[in-house]
Each structure stands twice: as C-alpha cells, then as structure tokens.
C-alpha cells in the first residue's frame, strides 16, 4: 500500500511537470506576440520591445520556465545591494516587493538623471528622497544600481544612461526618460505558492482565479449531486430489467443524451425554458460576486445541461455492469436458494456492480472539465472553464498555466480517489 502511494505521488509530480512544460512550449510557439494583445495593433516596434522587456520576455525560454516554476527572487537577490522583502498592500491585499534598507521598506526611481529612494510610509504611500550614495561603480567606470521599482520588478539603473521606456498607464502608453536598463519581474514561483501576474487582468492570477474555481466547484458539485443518485438508480433499474421495455427506454434515452453535444443540449434547453416558456434565466449574469446565492435559479439550466450529458454516460456504465453481475452464477444461486429478489439485488449485486462505474466516473472527470468549458461559454458563467478559454485566446501565460494545473490536480486527485474506492469495494485487489 505504501509503495503504491509513493509511486502514485511520484507519478503525479512527473505528470504535472510534463503538462506544465508541454503547455509552456505550446504557448511559447503558439500565442505570438502578447504585446499585440495588450498594447493593440497600433503600437510601434520600440513601444513593443520596451513593454516586452518590462514583462521580462527578453529572457530565454528555459529561464522564464524556471522563473515561473521556482521563482526568480533568489537569483535577483544576489545582484542587489539590499535584501528583498514582500509586504501586503493594505488596500488591494496583493503582495508587493520592496527592498529592506535597515528596516525601511524602500523602492527606487530615476528622475532627471538622479537616483531617488521611495520610502514606504505607514499609510501605504511613499516619500521620495535623493539617493546619490547608492550608485555602485562597475566595470568601464560606469555607475549602476540594482533596485526595486514601482511595478514589482528588480531593475538595473545606469547612471547618466537612462533608457527611454514606454510605460502602460490607464490613459495609454506614456514615454518616460531615465528608465531602467534591465527588468526582472519578481515572482516567487508556483511551487512557493505564487502563480504570477495575469497579463489579461493585470492582477495576480491567484486573486482572479479563486472566485472562478469556487463558481465552477459549485456548478460541478451541484451537477454531481444531481447526477450520481439518478444515474445509479436508472442504471440499476435498467440492469435488473435487461431486455424489457423499461430497459430499452432508459438505454435509448441515455444514449441519446450522451451522444448529443453539450452545446446542442444547452441551446435546446435555453430555447425551451428561456425563450418559449420564459420561466428560467437563459444566461447567468453575475452582477456581484455572490450572485448565485442570491438567485440560484440561474444555476438550473447549466446544471441541467451537464446532467443530461453525464447522466446518460454513468447510467449506461452502471447498466452494463449490473447486467454482467446479474448474469453471474452466485446471483443465480442466491435466487435459486429462495432469497427474496430485492435482497439479492441490494445485498449481493449492487456492491459488485458499482465497482466498474466508480472507476470509470473518476477517470471521466477530465472529460467533464471539457464539458464545463462549453457549458460555461454558452451560459456566460464566470467559472474555471471560461477562464481557461478566455486566457488561452488571449495568450495569458501565467493564467493558463495556473488554471491548467488546477484541472490536472483535480483529474489526478479524482483518479486516486477512484483507485482507493475500488480497493475499498473490491477486497481482491492488492497492490503489489
């Protein structure tokens, strides 16, 4: 058992690494120039180059992958004069990077050729003071300094040779002289719990992702609770009535429901309940973050759509497995020896018949996630699936990676649960 656990943990880690590398390479090749998406098509090549440098995209591929995975503050630190610290912004609750200069959180900027310290005040604002003494003499008798700037980057200033940079502000791109020469966008890395910044929303991925995951868990959870008892009930019912009209009806209905794509089911449901009968909302409008709790009727159509597809699948699996069990010798023996029929079904058959569906349901979760994407797109439901869809279209690297890691984790965890449930139900299984 221990060996089995160790093995599955190792295999999980390898799987996650493979997926993250694969995704990284695909996005690297696939998504093209992200600056087009952020700055628009009318930005000049200089503006793009400057902006890409600010995002740290001028670094080689392998380095960006490692930065994403294990962070880059540890090697940025080695270049800096003062140690790096992270502080929570009191207003946005987002993590900010500062340098610790003798207990004073400090950032730097260059103004009119002069280096200035920005000292962090209690209220969260900062005060600028000159910092000429910070310059360090490097080779070729140029003076440089590695500090932290206003946008959580480790930056290299060079005295008398400020770069012209283009900074993205709310009003658009603005040209600034005296910019840094080099940027390292500071991050802790995924394995230390920092999923990076989302380029699309310009906020930390974890902040954007959390409510999405919650919404999807509610949707999928409700669907699961609705589907499982119904599917098992109908599957068992059809299984013990094999070949009778009841079985035919259940089998054909469930086949039809499974073979109809989610978007077709969803649109039919919208048409029937939203347009013709006008009894249920046809879209999910999130006017506030807890809108589902205020108006749970919004959930009905998305859940029904997911139910239609999943119900058929699970019911078919259960039916097939039930038919097989009911055909076996020990069931016949139990019936022949005069045991009441319902007791044979409940005590002897069901336990064995549930083994196959449970493992298959658990393996099926990944497919369910694909279905969730479609359902969320149809109904405009702000969940994980729609988030993945939007970020992949935008090319928002950190966001896709983080969301994909969540889905991979869900898939792997459910598979493990499936394995464990299988061992619990089937004492014959022993892991060598």
């Amino acid at each position, binding site marked *: 058992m221990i060996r089995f656990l160790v093995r599955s943990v190792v295999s999980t880690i390898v799987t996650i690494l493979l997926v993250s590398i694969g*995704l990284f390479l695909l996005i690297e090749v*696939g998504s093209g120039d992200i600056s087009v998406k952020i700055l628009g098509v009318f930005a000049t090549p200089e503006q793009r180059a400057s902006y890409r440098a600010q995002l740290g995209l001028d670094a080689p591929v392998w380095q960006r992958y490692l930065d994403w995975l294990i962070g880059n503050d540890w090697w940025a630190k080695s270049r800096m004069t003062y140690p790096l610290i992270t502080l929570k912004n009191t207003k946005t609750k987002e993590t900010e990077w500062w340098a610790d200069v003798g207990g004073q959180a400090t950032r730097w900027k260059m103004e009119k050729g002069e280096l200035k310290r920005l000292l962090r005040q209690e209220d969260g604002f900062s005060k600028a003071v000159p910092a000429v003494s910070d310059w360090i003499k490097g080779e070729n008798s140029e003076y440089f300094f590695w500090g932290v700037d206003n946008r959580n980057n480790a930056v290299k200033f060079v005295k008398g040779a400020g770069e012209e940079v283009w900074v993205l502000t709310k009003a658009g791109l603005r040209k600034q002289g005296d910019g840094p020469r080099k940027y390292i966008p500071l991050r802790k890395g995924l394995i230390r719990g920092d999923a990076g910044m989302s380029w699309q929303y310009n906020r930390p991925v974890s902040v954007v992702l959390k409510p999405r995951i919650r919404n999807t868990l509610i949707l999928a959870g409700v669907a699961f609770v609705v589907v499982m008892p119904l599917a098992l009930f109908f599957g068992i019912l059809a299984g013990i009535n094999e070949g009778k009209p009841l079985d035919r009806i259940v089998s054909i209905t469930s086949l039809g429901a499974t*073979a109809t794509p989610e*978007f077709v089911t969803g649109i039919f449901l919208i*048409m029937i309940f939203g347009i013709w009968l006008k009894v249920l909302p046809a879209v999910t409008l999130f006017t506030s973050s807890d809108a589902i709790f205020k108006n749970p009727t919004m959930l009905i159509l998305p859940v029904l759509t997911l139910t239609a597809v999943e119900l058929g699948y699970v019911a078919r699996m259960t039916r097939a497995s039930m038919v097989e069990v009911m055909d076996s010798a020990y069931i016949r023996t139990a019936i022949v020896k005069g045991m009441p029929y319902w007791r044979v079904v409940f005590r002897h058959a069901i336990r064995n018949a549930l083994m196959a569906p449970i493992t298959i349901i658990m393996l099926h979760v990944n497919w369910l996630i694909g279905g969730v994407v479609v359902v969320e*797109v149809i109904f405009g439901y702000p969940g994980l*699936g729609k988030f993945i869809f939007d970020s992949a279209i935008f090319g928002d690297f950190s966001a896709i990676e983080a969301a994909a890691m969540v889905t*991979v984790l869900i*898939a792997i965890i459910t598979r493990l649960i499936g394995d464990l449930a299988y061992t619990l139900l089937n004492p014959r299984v022993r892991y060598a």
Partner: protein
Amino acid sequence: MNAEASASNKQKREKREKPSLWKTISIVFDSRVATVGVVMVSFWLVIAGVSLFWTPYDPNSSDFIQNLSPNATNWLGTDHMGRDLLSRLMQGTQVILLKTRLPGGDHSIPGGVAIWGVLGSLILGAILGLNAGYRRGWTDQIIMQVLDALIAFPQIVLYLVVIAALGQGDLVVILAITITGAPGVARLARSLALDIQTRDYIRAAETRAESVWFIMFREILPNARGPLLVDAMLRVGYAIFMIGTLGFLGIGLPPPDPDWGSMVNEARKYIFVNQLAVIWPALSIATLVIGLNLFADGLREELMRYQK
C-alpha cells in the same frame, strides 16, 4: 511451379476470407440497435454523396431574405445572411465525412476530417500501445507516463493553443483529434497486447527470431483488431462531437464552407428571431453521432455474443 502454388494458395485464402467478411458485415443486421444506427449513418452518407454533385442552391451565397422560416423555395428556411439552410446542412456533411481541404489552395483529399483524425489516433495509439504492451519494462513505464500527462492535459487548452499556433485549418483539427484520441487507443492496445503476448504463437514467432516490429504489427495487431475497430467507430462519433464543439466555440473548421458547429454558433446570436437555424444543424450533429454510437454499440454486443 512455385509461383503457381502460391497463387492457388492465395486463391484459397481469398475464398476462405470472403464468406467471413460477409459474415462480419451481416452481424450488424442481427441487432436491431445496430441496424437503426446503420440507417442513420447511411442517411447522412447519402446526403453527403448527393451534396458533392447537387445542392438546391449555392450554400455560400446570400441569395434570399434573412431568417426566413421554411417555405416552398427554401425548405428549411434561411439563415441570418440569407443563405439557404438546406444547402448548407447538406454541404456541412462533406468536411466531416468526405473531404479534407488542404491549406493554401482549392485542393482537397478524400476522407473527412473526422475519419482522418480517428485514423491518425488509431495509428499513433497502436504504435504507442503495442510498444508499451509488448516490450513492457521501462518502455511501458515511460510511454504510460507520457500518456497519463496527455490524458490529464486540459484538451480545450490544447486545441486553443495548437490552433493559435498553426491557424485554423482542417489539418489542425485532424492533428487535435489525433493527439487527444491517441491515449485512449494506446491504453486499449496496450491491454490487448499484454493479453495476446502470452499466447503460444507469439512464443513461436519469437523462436523464429522475428523482429519486434513484425511481432507487434503482424502477429499482435491483427488479433487485436476487433475491439480496436469497435472503439474506432465510437471515436468517429466523438470526433464529430468534437468538431461540432470546436465550431461552436469559433475555433473549428475554417469558413466559408459550412460546418454544423459554426452554423449553430452563428445562428445562436439570432435565436430570438429564428430558432430553426439553430435547431437544424444541432439536430444533424445529434442524429449523426447517435447513429454512430448505436452502430458501434450494436456491433459490440453482437461480437460479444459470438465470443460467448
């Protein structure tokens, strides 16, 4: 003399094979479920064939008033751009079942996107699965690890990113179907190979010092073809399902040729005005996929009955 003998041998073999082939086909009609499936699928195949030579109107030209309901000229009505829906529905079968458009030109090759995609995943999956199942040991471990990663990979991201990288196109959709289908096929092929390789004729082939690839593809594969074919049939259904979903999400087969998924997606914006433009292609996808599923299901049941 020698050539003659081999020729007569060949004849004998053909004689033996012919009735068995017919038997395999006639199995389908033993099952009512499979017969219904065959009827549904052939209905669409016939429509696809007809559409190659004739459609009521040009599917891509806006000749009529927008969003008409069914009438004498347009049997199924028109869509939001005034195109005849019947013609578009008919032409929509082609990209799925009959032709694949090659990039950068008017050329297309026979065999639809769904067919080529499934064929691709069969080939890739069989190579991986047979290698894993027959060689076992480290090869098995590595292949299964990669397949696990592929299965865990969120497919929708894979599509979006591949399509972003290579642009919309029939070949890209084929590639996507191949990659997402291969792990399933490989798992099946592996389990079959694990079972078959314990047989005596594999020992015999090994004693004859046949190459590994010969054993895998000439000894194991032909004996594993039954389950693989039934699985492939189901996969064609899934592939059509997937093409529809991709079209619905706006990242499927490229315009201007109609494709059912994108027809649903476009007509969805006018759903309050013209519901039929959504209903027709949606029904088409559903019936074709259900037909394929019934066919595969019936076939599997019949094959299993024969095995018993």
